[in-house]
C-alpha cells in the first residue's frame, strides 16, 4: 500500500507556463521571476520542477510554474506526462493551476496554436503569450495580437523572452485581477478530450489564413548553418572539436579558481589551528570539517565550467544536432541519439544525466541510458584520478603528449567504451524490441542569452553547495568520528587509527578487497566514497594523516601513498574507480526514476562485479609484470 500523500500548497494563486518545446518558455519564466526560483522534483518522478515567484505591482506574490514543453496533451515521455497531469489537476502534491499562460513561438504559429486550442478546452482561465516576436519581425512575420485574440477568444500579449523588458504586457495581465482573464471555454470537465489533431490543424489554418499568416517563412540562416553542422564529415569534425574544447576547458579554466579555493581552505585551516587549542575540537574542525568540505568544494569550478558548456550548447540549439550526428553510432549499440544528452551530462554528474533521460520516450532506451550513465566519468571521480596519477604516473612526454594527461584521457575512454559494451549486451538481451522513435525537433539556432546561462549556472552551483553542506559534510564528520574513536588504550604504540572503529571495519573489508590489492586503509576509504566518491580522497587523508594538521589532504597524501603502495595497487584502484559502484545519491535517483529497488540492485550489483573483476585482472597482470 502506498502511504497517503499530504498535499501542502503554499498560499497564493498558481500560474502555469505551458508551451511547445523550444518556444522560449523558460526564458520568459526567467524574465518574470528573475532569480527567485526553486528547482526541485515533482513528487514521485525525477522531472525537474521549476517554480518561481512573480511580484505583482501591488507587492503581492504569485507562484509561477514552468511546465515541461509539450507538443500536445497526449504525453509521450515522463516529463510530458507531468505537464498534462498538472494541467488536469491530477499531479501528486500539486494543485491545479489557477491560471495558464500558454506561450507560443510567433515564428511557428502553425504548430504552436494547436496546443493553444487543446489547452483552451481544459477550461482554465488563460492568456496567450506571443513570444519571440522580435525574431518573427526579423523574418517578416507580423502578427496582429488583437485579431488573434478575437479569433482565439482569449487575451493575447506580445512578449520577447530574451529581453528584460520583454514581458511588460504580460506583467500588466498578471497584475490585473484574475477575473479579467476570460475563462477559456464554457467550464468543461478537466479531461483531455481533444477531437482530432487534424480538426485543430484545420482550425489553425483558418485562423492563420484570416490573419494573412498562412505562408511559410524561410529559415535561411539556420539552414545555412545546418548545411555545415549536419554535414557527415564537417559536422562530425565540429562535434569532436566542441567536445575536445569542452574537456580542455574543464581542466584549463578551472585551474585558477581551484587554486583560490585551495588557498582559502589552507588559510582557514591555518587560522583554526592557530586559534583553537590542540585537542579533539581542533582535530574535528581542521581534519574533519575544513579538510573534508574543502576537498570537495574544490571541484565546484570544474562542475560549473562543464555546465556552462552544456547550457550554451542547449540554449543555442546545438545539442539536438549533436544527437542527430551520433544517432547511427549509438544505434550500433542499441541506443538512439536521444541518449547523447543524458550521457554527456553524466560527465559532470550522473544525477542530472539520469534526470535528463526523462526526455527519452522509449522506456527500454531510457532504462539502458540510466544504467550506463554512471560509467561516464563524473567530475567527482576526478579528485581520485588526480591523486593517484600524481602519485604514481611519472610526469614525462610520450610521443609528444604528457603521460599523465594520456592516462587520464585513457580512463575517460575506458568508461565510455565499457558503457558502449554494456549497452551492446543489453541490446543482445532484448532482441525483438520495437523500432525506437527518434522524432526529435531541430530548433532554430539562436544566441544564448547571458541571463539564462547565468541563472542555469547559479542553480547548478546551489544544488552542488547544498550537497556539500548536507550529505558530504555529514559523511566527513562520520568518517572523522570512526577514525578517532575509540581512543587507543594507554601505552599503545600503534597509530590511533588502527585501534579505531574505522581500522576494525577496514580490516574486515580488506578480506573482500585484498585479492585486488587494496590494503585496509583503502578499503575503509571506499566506504564513505560510496556515499560521495570525492570523499574517498578526504577519507584517505583522514585515515593516513589524522593527526597531521595539513590543510589539503591530497597534497600530503601524494608522497605518502607513493611510498606505501605498489604501482599494481594504484593501477587496480584507478581501474576500480572507472567502474566504481556509483554513489548513494545516484542510487536514490535511480530508485525514484525507475520506481523499483530491483534496478537499483541490478545497477549496484553489475557495477560492483565489473569493478572487482576488472581491478582483479589489472592487479594480477601488474603483479606479474613485476609492479607488485
Amino acid at each position: 500500500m502506498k502511504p497517503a500523500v499530504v498535499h501542502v500548497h503554499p498560499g497564493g494563486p498558481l500560474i502555469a507556463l505551458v508551451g511547445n518545446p523550444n518556444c522560449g518558455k523558460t526564458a520568459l519564466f526567467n524574465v518574470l521571476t528573475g532569480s527567485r526560483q526553486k528547482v526541485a522534483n515533482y513528487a514521485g518522478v525525477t522531472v525537474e520542477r521549476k517554480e518561481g515567484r512573480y511580484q505583482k505591482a501591488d507587492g503581492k506574490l504569485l507562484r509561477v510554474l514552468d511546465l515541461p514543453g509539450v507538443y500536445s496533451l497526449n504525453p509521450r515521455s515522463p516529463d510530458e506526462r507531468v505537464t498534462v497531469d498538472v494541467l488536469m489537476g491530477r499531479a501528486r502534491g500539486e494543485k491545479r493551476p489557477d491560471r495558464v499562460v500558454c506561450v507560443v513561438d510567433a515564428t511557428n504559429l502553425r504548430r504552436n496554436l494547436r496546443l493553444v486550442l487543446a489547452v483552451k478546452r481544459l477550461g482554465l482561465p488563460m492568456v496567450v503569450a506571443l513570444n519571440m516576436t522580435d525574431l518573427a519581425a526579423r523574418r517578416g512575420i507580423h502578427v496582429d495580437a488583437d485579431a488573434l485574440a478575437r479569433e482565439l477568444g482569449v487575451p493575447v500579449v506580445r512578449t520577447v523572452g530574451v529581453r528584460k523588458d520583454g514581458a511588460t504586457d504580460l506583467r500588466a495581465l498578471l497584475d490585473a485581477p484574475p477575473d479579467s482573464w476570460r475563462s477559456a471555454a464554457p467550464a468543461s470537465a478537466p479531461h483531455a478530450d481533444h477531437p482530432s489533431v487534424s480538426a485543430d490543424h484545420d482550425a489553425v489554418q483558418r485562423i492563420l489564413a484570416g490573419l494573412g499568416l498562412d505562408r511559410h517563412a524561410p529559415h535561411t540562416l539556420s539552414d545555412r548553418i545546418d548545411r555545415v553542422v549536419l554535414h557527415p564529415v564537417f559536422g562530425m569534425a565540429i562535434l569532436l572539436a566542441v567536445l575536445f574544447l569542452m574537456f580542455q576547458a574543464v581542466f584549463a579554466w578551472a585551474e585558477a579558481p581551484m587554486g583560490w579555493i585551495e588557498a582559502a581552505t589552507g588559510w582557514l585551516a591555518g587560522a583554526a589551528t592557530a586559534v583553537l587549542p590542540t585537542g579533539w575540537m581542533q582535530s574535528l574542525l581542521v581534519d574533519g570539517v575544513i579538510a573534508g568540505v574543502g576537498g570537495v568544494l574544490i571541484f565546484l569550478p570544474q562542475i560549473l565550467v562543464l555546465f556552462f558548456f552544456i547550457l550554451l550548447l542547449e540554449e543555442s540549439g546545438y545539442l539536438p544536432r549533436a544527437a542527430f550526428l551520433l544517432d547511427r553510432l549509438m544505434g550500433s549499440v542499441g541506443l538512439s541519439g536521444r541518449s547523447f544528452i543524458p550521457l554527456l551530462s553524466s560527465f559532470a554528474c550522473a544525477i542530472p544525466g539520469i534526470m535528463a533521460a526523462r526526455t527519452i520516450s522509449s522506456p527500454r532506451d531510457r532504462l539502458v541510458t540510466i544504467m550506463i550513465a554512471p560509467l561516464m566519468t563524473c567530475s567527482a571521480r576526478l579528485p581520485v584520478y588526480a591523486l593517484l596519477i600524481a602519485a604514481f604516473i611519472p610526469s614525462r612526454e610520450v610521443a609528444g603528449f604528457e603521460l599523465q594527461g594520456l592516462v587520464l584521457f585513457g580512463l575517460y575512454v575506458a568508461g565510455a567504451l565499457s558503457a558502449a559494451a554494456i549497452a551492446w549486451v543489453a541490446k543482445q538481451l532484448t532482441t525483438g524490441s520495437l523500432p525506437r522513435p527518434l522524432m526529435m525537433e531541430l530548433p532554430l539556432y539562436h544566441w544564448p542569452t547571458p541571463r539564462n546561462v547565468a541563472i542555469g549556472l547559479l542553480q547548478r552551483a546551489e544544488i552542488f553547495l547544498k550537497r556539500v553542506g548536507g550529505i558530504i559534510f555529514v559523511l566527513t564528520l562520520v568518517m572523522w568520528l570512526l577514525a578517532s574513536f575509540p581512543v587507543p588504550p594507554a601505552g599503545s604504540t600503534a597509530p590511533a587509527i588502527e585501534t579505531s572503529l574505522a581500522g576494525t571495519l577496514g580490516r574486515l573489508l580488506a578480506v573482500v578487497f585484498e585479492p585486488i590489492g587494496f590494503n585496509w586503509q583503502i578499503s575503509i576509504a571506499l566506504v564513505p566514497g560510496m556515499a560521495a566518491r570525492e570523499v574517498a580522497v578526504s577519507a584517505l587523508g583522514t585515515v593516513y594523516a589524522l593527526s597531521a594538521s595539513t590543510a589539503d589532504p591530497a597534497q600530503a597524501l601524494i608522497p605518502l601513498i607513493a611510498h606505501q603502495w605498489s604501482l599494481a595497487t594504484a593501477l587496480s584502484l584507478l581501474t576500480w574507480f572507472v567502474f566504481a559502484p556509483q554513489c548513494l545519491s545516484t542510487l536514490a535517483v535511480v530508485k525514484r526514476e525507475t520506481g523499483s529497488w530491483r534496478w537499483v540492485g541490478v545497477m549496484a550489483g553489475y557495477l560492483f562485479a565489473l569493478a572487482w573483476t576488472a581491478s582483479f585482472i589489472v592487479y594480477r597482470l601488474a603483479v606479474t609484470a613485476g609492479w607488485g
Partner: protein
Amino acid sequence: MNTFFLDGARQRTPYRIVHVNAPAGAPEWHDWLHELGFIPGETVQLMARAAGGDPLVIRVGNSTFALRVAEAACIQITPLTQTTPA
C-alpha cells in the same frame, strides 16, 4: 495520383503529405507524427541525410525534425505541383 514515401523523396524538393501510416508494431507513431505537424495537406521537404543515410532532416510547415528512415517511411507524399484532394 503519383505518391510515394518521404524516405524516398528527393532532397530539398517540396512535397505534400497525403497520408500518415503507422507500423504494425508502433500504432502510436501515427498520433505522434500528427502532433508534430505531419498532417495531410501540409508541405514537407527532405533537407538532408546523415552519414549512412539515416536519420533524415525533415522540414514540415515551419519546423525541422530529425526522423529515422523508418519514421519517414510512414509518411506518404506527392509532388507539390500536383493538386491533391485533401
